[in-house]
């Protein structure tokens, strides 16, 4: 029973991080119609940036991580604006293959940037003392930070849902996703929407990456796994759907945790089984529409 509960919390923590990454990707995908292979790399970049901010800029003090948690997403969002402005803007509406090539090229470039900037050794972000302890629920000891991650992710989910449904930015985004040409005719600044959406995606990856530094080490081999996982989540959830990304993240996070318990190393295989089952059942994902 205790194990099950621990695994549930572990699975939800994973799911929370996955959601933050997948939500950004699904927005970029759904609105900008761009296949961004580099999304996982941006997430890893966020981890390295968090490392540098908390150990370098703030000297690794007890609260350094919290400064980094605020700064990293902002930096990533700004960086996203630059990438969107100078690279992605040239490939909107092009063949899928061209988009794949360009963003896949970015994956390689980022990979070398990490190595040049931070070296090949894994990096550990000093653990925060605030929220760093553990607490006990129903006689089970749970790290406080895991609960914080779950809380953050849930807050982001609510905020995103509100932004998409209530704000004018959200309305414009949905309109642009639906029919870009019409929006341009109606005077919507579609370029600004694209930039905004991409920056938002990077911002979310920034939060996810920053939080994830407290759960494990940062190393070079991470981007492939998270990139592919993020795509699986987006496809399972349905392109462009925040709710879909959330459900898929929980599904995959739990599968991964329980899979690790029962199948140890081959738990990973279960994720693919989940994906294949969902896609056979609903070819456009749980919340997806056939349009895209």
């Amino acid at each position, binding site marked *: 029973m205790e194990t099950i509960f621990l695994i549930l919390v572990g699975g939800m923590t994973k799911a929370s991080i996955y959601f933050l990454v997948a939500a950004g990707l699904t927005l970029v995908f759904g609105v900008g119609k761009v296949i961004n292979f580099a999304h996982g790399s941006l997430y890893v970049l966020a981890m390295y940036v968090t490392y540098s901010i908390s150990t370098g800029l703030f000297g690794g003090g007890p609260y350094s991580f919290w400064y980094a948690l605020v700064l990293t997403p902002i930096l990533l969002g700004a960086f996203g604006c630059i990438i969107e402005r100078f690279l992605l803007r040239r490939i909107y509406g092009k063949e899928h293959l061209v988009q*794949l*090539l360009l963003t896949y*090229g*970015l994956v390689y470039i980022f990979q*070398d940037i990490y190595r040049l900037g931070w070296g090949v050794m894994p990096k550990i972000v000093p653990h925060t003392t605030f929220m760093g302890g553990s607490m006990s629920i129903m006689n089970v000891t749970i790290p406080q930070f895991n609960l914080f991650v779950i809380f953050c992710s849930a807050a982001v989910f609510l905020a995103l849902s509100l932004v998409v449904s209530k704000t004018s930015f959200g309305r414009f985004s949905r309109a642009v996703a639906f029919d870009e040409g019409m929006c341009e005719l109606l005077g919507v600044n579609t370029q600004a929407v694209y930039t905004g959406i991409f920056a938002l995606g990077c911002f979310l990856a920034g939060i996810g990456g920053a939080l994830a530094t407290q759960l494990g080490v940062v190393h070079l081999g991470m981007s*492939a796994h998270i990139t*592919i996982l993020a*795509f699986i989540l987006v496809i399972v959830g349905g392109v462009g759907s925040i709710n879909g990304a959330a459900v898929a993240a929980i599904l995959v996070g739990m599968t991964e945790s329980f899979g690790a318990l029962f199948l140890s190393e081959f738990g990973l295989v279960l994720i693919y089984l989940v994906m294949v089952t969902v896609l056979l059942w609903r*070819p456009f994902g749980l919340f997806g529409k056939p349009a895209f």
Partner: protein
Amino acid sequence: MLRDDKSVNRTKAALGTALALALLLTPLLIDGYWLHLLMEIIILGFFAISLNLVMGYGGMISFGHAGFYGIGLYITAGLLKHSGLPLPLILLTASLCGALCGLIVGYLCVRLRAFYFAILTLAFGQLIWAVIFKWYKVTGGEDGIIGVPLPEFLSNETTLYFFILAICAFCIGIIYWIVNTSFGQVLAATRENSERTECIGVNCNRHRLVAFVISTFFAGLAGGLYCLLSRSAFPDLVEWGKSGEVLLSCVLGGMYSFFGPFVGAALMIMLESLVTSFFTDRWPLVLGTIFVVVALAVPQGITGYIQEKLQRRLATLKQTGATP
């Protein structure tokens, strides 16, 4: 127009003969590192052409072909090391296993279009990689399989070269044959307009699936041949980086010409060797930059670019010729 076609054909035939002669005579001139490099080019070129059957002709962006290549690679390595089977049988087993996995993956993927297909094949490719990477007992995990023994008759480098050249040339010939048959042409039609092709009585998904299986058969064989060359097998060669490399070969060389992918593969290998000999480990950065530049500047590939230029030249020549 007819005369142009003829002269183009003659140029092509001359180029082909020259290339064949060159490939046959090279082992007399070069050896060691350079011959090794040439064999790598031939194998990657063959791999790229087999992928292009799916991409250029079938219109399916497969981002997981390294998985099938890897299956061929590991099966060849394992069988060479632990079984006494004759080499042709081993290579055949490797290809068939590649094709079998291709059948399963293809069955699940062909109903999907465009990027869904790309992502799903990528996921399956990574699944194969993950299994190879984690199944330490069988595959040696990260350490890979090393010291694969070769049969007696291949111990000589030149013989190995001719062995690889012969198999690759033969199989490229088969693929060339396939794309020109009714099957291949109908496949190309499914890429052009699958809705219309359904309406002339073609089950497009089944055509796609068969093309995918054929392609993965040859991908497995390419992996097996690479094992003969490297005498080892490592999980790096199964990862998505390899899928990306062979995909880039196709696009760089040009997906819409038969030999384009081979040209792309040659460029890739030569460039890699050049870059790594000057900057040792900056290859990923250079490769990434090539990806970006190709995507922005020459999405139709090198051969596509040359063809366009040539056609424009021919058109202007015709115009000036028409008004003497």
